[in-house]
Every structure is written in structure tokens, then in C-alpha cells.
């Protein structure tokens, strides 16, 4: 029993780390640009499919590095052409546009790579269990956890220690003042969007090793990402991280006792948070 519980908690942590990785990207974009990126799941799928296409040429490690970068580049282009026109408008239009974008990306990936699930090879040494007692600790899972943790750490370091990070944080608080101080806000928002999409692409490359590769891969991750942001508190990146891990673990634990309710538990968690603390766990008061 305790092993089963441990297994599910660990599993929950992994899932939660994914939710957090997705949600951090969404959160970055939402905080600075006020756009809810419904197409985030689509970018995740692009990351996964690009990795699949790249592996024969550059190998697993090459794809791991290149694919998120390429995804981020596509993100930068889309921001320039489409997303930029949404800034300062009613959030309604941002939702509708990214909603349409999500449709187009899903259909586009289906058109290019086909609707059926594609096989995805991870290196053999990563897929074997590390010990017989803890059979669930496969190398790939531990590897994913480490990589996600590294990515999150790198993101927070960028935000706290680089000039770009400083500007993003300042822009989140008061974009107009940042603009008056001579920062090119257009470029800032562009880069910030790319950073968010990079995280989605990275999540995509890692997720296909676990969930398999199909055009709707992002669908199962987008709602939990929204909930992570709501639970953690809008406007707070540490909150988003906490929210993601929290609902991941809660989902994992529920799987042990009441499997069919494992999806429902995160909505319950969200309802409780909204009831007790509408601004979210680490959200600032009066921001929204």
C-alpha cells in the first residue's frame, strides 16, 4: 500500500511538473500581455512533433535542444503577425483569436503528421527502472523531473538576475512606466511570448515520451494549466508553480483511493480556493 501511495505521489509530482511548466508559460504571457493563450496546448504539440521529425537527424539530445527553440521561434513569428494586434483590447478578442489558432494548429499537425498516434523512441538506458523495489522510478521519469526542475530554476534565475527578467517583472507591474523609461515594450512582449512558448515546446518534447504523440496531446494539459494558475494566484509565477505541483499530487493521491474522480479533484480544489481565497494562494490582493 505504501509503495502504491508513493508511486502515485511521485506520478502526481511528474504530472504536476508538466502542468506547472505549461502554466508558467501561460502565466508569463498573461501577466505581461493580458492574453490568455488558448493555443498553448497547440504549441506543446508542435514541440513534440518537431522533436519526432528531428530525432532521425540530430538524435534525442539534439531534438531536446532544437525543438523547443524552433517552437519558440514559431511563437515569436505568430506574436509579430497576430498576437500583437490584441494588446490593449478586450480580453474577449484574445481568447477568440488564440482559440481559432488552437483549431488551426491541431488541424495543421493532423494534416502534416497524420491523426494516428506516432511511436516515439526514448534512449534505452532511460526507460529501464533504476531499482527493482521502486519499479516506477524509471530513468526517464527521474530524468524528466530533473529537467523540468532545471528549466523552472533557470526561468526564475533569468527573471531575477538578468536585465530581460527585470524588465519582464517590472512590465508585469506597470508596463506604461517601463515604456516611459525607454524600454522597447514591443520587443519585450515579443521576447516574453517567445519565452512562454519555449516552455510549452519543452513540455511538448518531454510529454510525448509519456503520453504518446497525437494532435490532441495538448488538450489534456491545457485545462489543468488554467487551474494551476487560478489555484496559485493570477500574477504570481511561484504561485503558478505551487498550483501545478499541488493539483498534480492531489490528482495522484486521488488515483489511489478513487480513480474515477482523479480529474474531478482539481476542480474541487479550485472551487475551494476560490471560495476561501478568491485571489489564489499566492496572488496579490486587488490585482484582478
Amino acid at each position, binding site marked *: 500500500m505504501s509503495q502504491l501511495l508513493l508511486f502515485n505521489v511521485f506520478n502526481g509530482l511528474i504530472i504536476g511538473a508538466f502542468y506547472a511548466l505549461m502554466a508558467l508559460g501561460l502565466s508569463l504571457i498573461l501577466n505581461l500581455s493580458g492574453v*490568455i493563450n488558448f493555443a498553448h496546448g497547440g504549441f506543446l504539440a508542435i514541440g513534440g512533433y518537431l522533436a519526432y521529425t528531428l530525432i532521425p537527424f540530430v538524435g534525442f539530445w539534439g531534438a531536446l535542444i532544437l525543438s523547443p527553440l524552433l517552437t519558440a521561434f514559431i511563437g515569436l513569428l505568430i506574436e509579430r503577425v497576430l498576437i500583437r494586434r490584441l494588446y490593449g483590447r478586450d480580453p474577449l478578442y484574445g481568447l*477568440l483569436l488564440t482559440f*481559432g*489558432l488552437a483549431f488551426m494548429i491541431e488541424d495543421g499537425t493532423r494534416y502534416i503528421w497524420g491523426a494516428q498516434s506516432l511511436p516515439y523512441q526514448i534512449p534505452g538506458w532511460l526507460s529501464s527502472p533504476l531499482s527493482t523495489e521502486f519499479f516506477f522510478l524509471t530513468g526517464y521519469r527521474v530524468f524528466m523531473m530533473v529537467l523540468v526542475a532545471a528549466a523552472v530554476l533557470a526561468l526564475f534565475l533569468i527573471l531575477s538576475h538578468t536585465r530581460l527578467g527585470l524588465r519582464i517583472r517590472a512590465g508585469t507591474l506597470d508596463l506604461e512606466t517601463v515604456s516611459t523609461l525607454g524600454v522597447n515594450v514591443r520587443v519585450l512582449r515579443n521576447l516574453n511570448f517567445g519565452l512562454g512558448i519555449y516552455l510549452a515546446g519543452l513540455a511538448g518534447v518531454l510529454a510525448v515520451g509519456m503520453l504518446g504523440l497525437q494532435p490532441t496531446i495538448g488538450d489534456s494539459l491545457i*485545462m489543468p494549466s488554467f487551474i494551476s494558475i487560478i489555484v496559485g494566484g493570477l500574477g504570481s509565477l511561484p504561485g503558478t508553480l505551487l498550483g501545478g505541483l499541488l493539483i498534480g499530487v492531489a490528482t495522484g493521491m486521488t488515483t489511489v483511493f478513487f480513480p474515477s474522480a482523479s480529474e474531478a479533484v482539481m476542480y474541487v480544489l*479550485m472551487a475551494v480556493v*476560490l471560495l476561501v481565497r478568491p485571489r489564489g494562494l499566492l496572488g496579490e490582493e486587488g490585482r484582478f
Partner: protein
Amino acid sequence: MDRVEEKAVAAPAVPVPGLRVDKRAADAVVWLLLLTAPFWLPLIGGYVQLGSRILVIALAAMALNFLLGYTGVLSFGHAAYFGLGAYGAAMTVAYIYPSTPLAMLVGVVVGTVAGAVIGPLITRLRGVYFAMCTIAFGQVFYYIAFQWSSVTHGDDGLSGWYRPPIDFGFATLDILHDGYAFYYMALAVFAVSAAVMAFLLRSPFGRTLLAIRENERRARFLGIPVDCHIWMSWVISCFFASVAGALYALLNNFVDPRALRWDMSGNFVIMAVLGGMRNFWGPLIGTAIFIVLQDYISSHTENWMSFIGLFFVLIVLFFPRGVLGMIRRRSAS
């Protein structure tokens, strides 16, 4: 913060004095077209069931617009209450008692109660935050319908039941085999719903909602209990969305979890925007365009999702005021 300023700058919807007669004429034209639709639809390549579908979905879009266009609150999760109405009606006929009025009643009660319970959790929130929470809560019912397959048959949907004829005592209306009968039954429900919504919007309550839309802070200073009004508007909107949902299940003799999914919510919003959010008949026109287009595209290409997606993008970029918004702007200038 800056969102509040924006709203203050936006021009208030002042009724233009000379437009009164035109408006009545427009109402008359709309009703005349709806009343005669089953007869002229086949002549231009449509069919009666398409008319019924437009009517039913349009009711849902108008219900959403009560919230979106007249209260200024963005719900992106209305498919939930639409779908609950549909499941309520379908399950009543399939499991409890084959009666169309009872099915409608159960569907509407289920959808409205769910909306009323979830309302207090989200009416304190504003803007993007409100929209996100409506999306997330909308998905709850999708998962329930999807997972609880012993009752809802999960992804396959609930089929194998048929809408029963309505028995008035002195006569029976065979809505099952007679497409015209169903159309006029749906039109009757639509007419009553539209009339009630129009009446509410013209009442002091409706004017208060407009005040909240135009400037929430000012409305609060006037002593209007804003959260409470938004909650009421939300429940009214959910009520009519579930009426539409119940009709939708009866129309198809079928319901599946896609009626509850977020893409359905998105469709409702785009229909309202496409027709014109600031106009009472906007969502009806938007729905007609959207449904006809969807019907046409999905029968001609497999990649209909791309076209619908592109359609969304184009509307946002080039047509954000919708059909009626454009016309009104033209005639004003």
C-alpha cells in the same frame, strides 16, 4: 486598472431618437422571416432541420449575449449549462418518463441550479480572471459526462431515445415525425425566451446591468450591489442557455459530451461577436451565418477545423464589431 479607464472612455450606448421606428420594423422583419423560414429555407438550398438548429443555437448565443453584451461580463464556459440542459432532457426521456415538457423542465432546472451554485464562486472576479474560471468550471461537467459512462454512455453519447409527441389533451403535436411541428415548437419557446429577455433588458434591472457594463465603479458608487446583479444576470443567462440545451437534445434525439466542451462555448461567443454583441438580434444573425458556414465547410472538406479557426482569427482582426455593429456604424456616420 487601465481596463476601467477604457470602459469610461467608451461611448455610452445612447439610443438615437430617429431609430425607434426602424427598430420596430427590424423586429417585424425578423419575426416574419422566422415564422416563414420552413417554407423558404428549402427553396434556397436549406432544410427544415437546419432552421431548427439555427433557432436553438441562436437562443443559446442570445442567452450568452445577455451576459456578454448587456452586462459586460465574459463567460467562456456557457456550453456547460447548455450541455447540462441537454443531458437533463435526454436522461429524463431515456430513463424516467417519455414526456417532452417534463424533459424540458428537468433540463432547465439542472442547468439553472448548476449555474446558480457556481455563480457565487466566480461573480467576485473580473476580466480575464472571470473568463478563465468560467472555462475551467465549464470543463467539470464535460469530465463528469465523459467519465460517468454507466449513465451517460461516455464518449459515445446518449442515444436510442426519441422525443415524445406533446399531448395537449385535446390534440397531439407530433414533433417526432413532423419537422415543421418541431420547428414551430422550438420557435414558440424561442419567442417566449426572447420576449422575456427583451422585457428584462428594458426594465430597471436591465438598465442597471447596462450601467454596470458601462462603468462598474460608478455603478458601485451609486449604491448598486454590483456582484449581486452580475450573479442574477449570470443565472438568467444560464437559465436560457439550458432551455436551448434541452431543445438541442430533443432536436437531435441524441446528446454527447461535445455539447459540454469548451469548443462549444467558444462557438457561442464567436456567434455573438460575429452578429454584433451590442444588438439584441446580433447573436441570431451570427448563429445563422456560423451554422450555415459550418454545415457547408464540413461537408466539403476534411480540414474544416482549419477553416473555422481561420474564420475566428479573421473576425477578431477585421470584423470585431460584427455584422450589425458595422451597419449601425455606417448609418451613424
